[in-house]
């Protein structure tokens, strides 16, 4: 039965595998070669790899997941395979297992390889800042590295499989899935990820972030009345203490003014040290959701009228 699942989707799965293996090979050769890139090349490579790592999990997951059940429903071959001795439950589980393997192994390999590649090649500092090479906790840097990549891919795969089983058209399942995955990722990033680890709070009178905060993910920052770590009801985070507009000559004058007018600067942030806690939490959410969605798609297959 595993052979059947593989054989039926062989063409598509091979395209996905070859694409991922080719990307890995490119990275490996690039890391091994001694000729350094010029800055412009670096910029291109940086943008390409960031864009790739942002979109690949979704594209690969949906490319494998959306046709998994939908092509059978579209071409009516589900009436062939569902009327054999193999139960629909077994059929669905084996298909999901083969698809998971095709998504999981190369995506994990690619993620590891990109991480390794980033440490091997001498990347200019101007590109590291804001890029994903720093294992940062800030958006883009956070979701283009680490195990979350694989979790996103599995989630997209499960969404694709479920939508495919419901709408019975691979193209529609892919398009709908892309929309769902994008919305869910944005929602998780803005509403869930900040709370996956307890944020740290920094407060001073000068409004300058200390050294090292550059790699952190600033959630909120601004000026508040002294003693408060969040704005009072009806007021907001103030980007600058309006009373001290004339006292910006130096940190010392600004601090004196802040002290006099009873305001202080507050920054709430996830420090770089929370990287693995956030990665673990977010990966768990997406893998858990994938398992639920996969179970749901099995249920749809088993209960569906053919």
């Amino acid at each position, binding site marked *: *039965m595993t*052979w*059947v699942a593989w*054989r*039926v989707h062989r*063409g598509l799965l091979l395209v996905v595998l070859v694409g991922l293996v080719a990307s890995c090979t490119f990275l490996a050769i690039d890391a091994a070669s001694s000729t350094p890139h010029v800055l412009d090349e670096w910029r291109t490579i940086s943008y390409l790899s960031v864009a790739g790592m942002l979109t690949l999990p979704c594209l690969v997951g949906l490319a494998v997941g959306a046709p998994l059940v939908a092509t059978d429903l579209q*071409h*009516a*071959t*589900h*009436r*062939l*395979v*569902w*009327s*054999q*001795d*193999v*139960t629909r439950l077994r059929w669905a589980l084996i298909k999901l297992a083969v698809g998971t393997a095709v998504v999981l192994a190369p995506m994990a390999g690619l993620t590891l390889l990109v991480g390794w590649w980033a440490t091997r090649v001498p990347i200019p500092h101007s590109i590291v800042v804001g890029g994903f090479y720093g294992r940062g906790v800030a958006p883009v840097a956070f979701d283009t590295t680490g195990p979350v990549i694989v979790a996103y891919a599995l989630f997209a795969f499960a969404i694709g499989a479920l939508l495919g089983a419901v709408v019975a058209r691979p193209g529609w399942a892919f398009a709908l899935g892309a929309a769902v995955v994008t919305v869910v990722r944005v929602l998780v990033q803005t509403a869930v990820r900040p709370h996956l680890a307890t944020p740290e709070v920094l407060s001073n009178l000068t409004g300058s972030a200390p050294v090292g905060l550059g790699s952190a993910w600033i959630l909120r920052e601004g000026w508040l009345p002294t003693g408060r770590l969040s704005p009072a009801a009806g007021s907001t985070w103030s980007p600058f203490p309006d009373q001290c507009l004339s006292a910006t000559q130096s940190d010392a004058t600004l601090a004196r003014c802040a002290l006099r007018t009873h305001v202080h600067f507050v920054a709430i942030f996830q420090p770089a040290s929370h990287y693995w806690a956030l990665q673990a939490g977010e990966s768990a959410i997406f893998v858990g959701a994938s398992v639920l969605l996969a179970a749901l798609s099995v249920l749809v297959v088993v*209960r569906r*009228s*053919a």
Partner: protein
Amino acid sequence: MVLTVSGLSKRYRGRWALQHCSFELSPGAIAALVGPNGAGKSTLLRILAGLIRPDAGNFAVTGAAPGGTRSSQVAYLDQDRPLYGNLSVSETLRLGRAMNHDWDQRRAVEHLERLGIDQHQKVGTLSGGQRAEVALTLCLAKHPRLLLLDEPFAGLDPLARGDLARVLLQSVVEDGTTVVLSSHVVAELADFCDHLLLLTGGKMRLAGEIDRLLARHRLLVGSVSSPLPTRARIVSRTASSRQLTLLVDADPLVCFQGWEAAMPSLGELIIAYLRDAAACSDEHRAGALSGSAEAR
């Protein structure tokens, strides 16, 4: 009995696709499932194949083959003959072997060789008839106790139809397979079917051995002025300017005075019931009641 069906019902969007269907088939029976489009033939076959869950009623396939499980006893040929076009014929056989407990590879290979179908050919490049043969081979290699065929003759040339009929008969003889096949082609059914299942508007109008059904019915020809028979149920009537033809359901011993009586052919019997159903559904429509539903 191999197949016992009782009270099967299926509803689609508030319409009955199948309503209280009951019948039985004994081992080796070849049953023709006949009815107009949308009568529920495909729905019935798909329920028996385990593809659709009925809303009410149940069915049982009994007489388990030694060592076999429940599901391995039923083989189903869909009317679209779905196969994977990008698989070769031999890969399609491997699919069948991988997905079934009992699989007779030799029988499958021999059958295809006899038909001259090249195993290395992609299924997508086969002709319609060859495709149907490969789909049927998948069914036969399972040695099914119950073989369900939805429109197996559709798209086959007369020669291939004869071949198919011969293969089915052989399977019935060798395995004691019970066959249910739906068809539009009334003429060819009489040659090798021994049971008739007549569905109209989701309801089973006739079910039983063809010989007994024919013996129960009379084709009466008389003048338009003859008094209608009272001790029989009139199934259909066709009137020309002078003569009236009736098909009636009556005790074989009843005599019809003033009528010329004869046993109907299978074709005449089927046509009479289909005509009756069409008339009924017209009346239903007039009364804002609808009995028929789409099969899909």
